[in-house]
């Protein structure tokens, strides 16, 4: 009997603590991505956009995302993460062609996908049902 209760307790503690740790991690990564996206967006919205700066920042953002990708892939569906990869790849093209409008739209889509990923991992009735 005791063994059953011990096993149940261990599993509960494991799952709950893992959930807390992973949620914190995804939160940290998303917040970092939001601030980087915001920085690039601010630059793109200027009258005189410094595309060198945008190019450099977007490359750094992509490098950061890829550095976090491996860890995120352990617990988030790869298809969801790949959506962000696709947006970042598209962003490189728009920045290269110095297309402000498409770049901003692309960044907004990226934000939406990241928010969706965060939302999916949140404990909500909607997600349970």
């Amino acid at each position, binding site marked *: *009997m005791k063994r*059953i*209760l011990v*096993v*149940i307790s261990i*599993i*509960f503690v*494991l*799952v709950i603590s893992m959930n807390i740790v992973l949620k914190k991690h995804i939160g940290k990564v998303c917040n970092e991505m939001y601030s980087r996206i915001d920085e690039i967006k601010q630059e793109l919205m200027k009258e005189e956009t410094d595309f060198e700066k945008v190019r450099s920042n977007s490359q750094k953002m992509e490098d950061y995302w890829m550095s976090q990708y491996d860890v995120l*892939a*352990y*617990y*988030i*569906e*790869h*298809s969801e993460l790949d959506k962000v990869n696709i947006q970042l790849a598209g962003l490189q093209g728009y920045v290269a062609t110095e297309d402000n409008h498409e770049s901003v739209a692309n960044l907004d889509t990226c934000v939406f996908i990241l928010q969706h990923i965060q939302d999916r991992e949140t404990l909500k009735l909607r997600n349970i049902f």
Partner: protein
Amino acid sequence: MLIIFIRSIILYILVLFVMRIMGKRQIGQLQPFELAISIMIADLATIPMADVGIPIINGIVPILGLLVMQLLISFINMKSLKARSIFSGKPAILIYRGKIDEKTLKKERITINELQERLRGNNVVNLADVEYAILETSGQMTVIQKPEKRNAVPQDFNIVPEYEGIPYDLVIDGQVMYDNLSIIKKDYKWLKNQTKKFGIIPEEALIVTIDGSDKIFCQKKDKKAE
């Protein structure tokens, strides 16, 4: 391809571990909630096995969730009779004192043909020979025949057979079972003397057993079969 192969091994080990924790039951003796969980575990394991895009943890966590449910329900069942009847149901007596209980038969949705089929599965071909037929919660049927129809036992002839006990394995595949030797209060030296009568040492034996009347069964390993 190698990824799927490794994932399937990991998930198989996990499912094996979970089934082991769930306890010893044969498929035919599972309670309804146990059967449901076993089927679901099998399905849950195959999803991340086949799709590398799904993190393996998406298979592991639900399996652990089902294990928790199974252990919890088992625990509640052990503590509460009422819970037992809710989760596992109650056995139903289909034949009571030689008479078929039609009401119970209808309630369990069993036809006469199915009843006869199940009786035949219990080696009873004549319905008239049955005193009680009980449909267990696992779906199996227990049949108690009328006294004049059941198999004879020594008691019927006023015979009291000698106590037989159970046979103990002393050597399996050349491995000496020291635990069993200590149970029967013997040692390796004694075992070696016994196997010497068969012309072998214990390590050369495929199997050595001893029964309740101290009779030894010994078979040598077939070198060609190795």
